[in-house]
């Protein structure tokens, strides 16, 4: 049976592609910011482009923090994409301004130290062992467009919860390009724009939810 996926609509960029790519791999997808619809979905995708602060404003306007908290508390899957990944961290530091994130993960999002920014184009991922998200596509390149990123995630596991799987990419410096942490996954790159590799990753995620 097809999974019901909601792409969270909070006024951020090109969300049509997220919807269409998930439909392409077999999901029923609606774009919505209705509180209950977002809670009821099998999986919630949080896209995001542009400034961290603007995305957080948009998320707050649709009670996104509450939606994410409630979903994760019930082990219901959430996938953050690009700035949708960044906002899961404690803070974003852009242009000298510190903005509080959704604080699901410790650590700050800062500018990448690289000669050429934005980091734009197709890059490799150092995939950690045991990844479900990258099953079959660990050697592929994915499409990035960003200048900021989390550099690491200091989160240990407990008896009941496995430690997060962390995947890295290097552009100037090494940064966190994807995380799998129980029901919360995120990618700094755009799977919906990463051709066949991206579609496979989305199909893998659908297989988890």
């Amino acid at each position, binding site marked *: 049976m097809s999974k019901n996926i909601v792409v969270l609509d909070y006024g951020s*960029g*090109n969300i*049509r*592609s997220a919807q*269409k*790519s998930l439909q*392409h791999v077999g999901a029923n997808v609606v774009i919505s910011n209705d509180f209950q619809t977002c809670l009821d979905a099998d999986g919630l995708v949080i896209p995001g*482009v*542009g*400034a961290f602060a*603007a995305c957080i404003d948009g998320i707050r306007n649709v009670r996104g923090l509450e939606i994410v908290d409630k979903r994760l508390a019930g082990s219901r899957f959430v996938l953050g994409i690009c700035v949708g990944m960044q906002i899961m961290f404690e803070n974003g530091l852009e242009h000298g301004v510190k903005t509080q994130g959704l604080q699901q993960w410790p650590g700050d999002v800062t500018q990448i130290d690289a*000669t*050429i*920014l*934005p*980091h*734009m*184009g*197709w*890059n*490799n991922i150092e995939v950690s062992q045991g990844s479900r998200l990258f099953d079959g*596509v660990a050697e*592929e*390149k994915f*499409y990035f*467009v*960003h*200048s900021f990123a989390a550099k690491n995630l200091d989160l240990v596991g407990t008896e009941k919860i496995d430690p997060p799987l962390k995947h890295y*990419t*290097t*552009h100037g410096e090494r940064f966190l390009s994807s995380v799998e942490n129980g029901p919360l996954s995120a990618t700094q790159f*755009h799977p*919906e*724009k*990463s*051709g*066949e*590799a*991206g*579609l*496979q990753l989305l199909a893998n995620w659908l297989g988890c939810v």
Partner: protein
Amino acid sequence: MPLATRIIPCLDVDNGRVVKGINFKNLVDAGDPVQLAKMYAEQGADEITFLDISASRDNKETMLDVVRKTADAVFIPLTVGGGIKSVADVDYLLRAGADKISINTSAINNPDLINEISNRFGSQVLVISIDARRTSEKYATSGFEVTTHGGTKSCGLDALAWTIEAVQRGAGEVLLNSMDKDGTKDGFDLELIEIIRSKVSVPLIASGGAGKVSDFYPAVKAGANALLAASVFHFQDIKIEDVKKELQANNVEIRSQI
């Protein structure tokens, strides 16, 4: 460096159909944009660029429809340029499924538009497209000036100074079109690429002059992060796959197809 050099086919779209002529004159119909974009994605294009060259701006819906249909079927980045004059134009295109938009003449006429677009949507959506050509005019201290109308009109601006200003105002990428080389199939304008690269730290797409597979590597060496071409791809003179093989043979990182 694992970040791949991108190969970008550009489709000139007039009233919903793909066309491309020599130096933007003598247009020849070369097909349906959605099908062409899909074909290029399958052939290994790393991005697709649509340039809307429709003379009439009355029916913007035609282009939006092309963008929608393409974004629904092709899951690689899509850039759209041509006739974008306002933040509202950008908003419509992004909602239709474009990932980036490129502006050229409208930014020259109204440089604040660059700030407005990047403030609203982020600099990563905004490509500043610059039609540059050689000149001995004094104002062009880099030796290159900015032109409009397919290279026929001078703007009285130095190409390097304008590129730097556009990036400072918020452009996240530069599409550098050599009007001296466009349509010549004589190779990219290496001198122009080197001059712009030396002062600009956003990604640089080189365009104009691609004629054969061996033309691409010198442009990468000169500093291009991505290479854009139109007619040589449309008329199957060269294949994207062969360009990538040539780059790979020169130790340039490329993306292979699954």
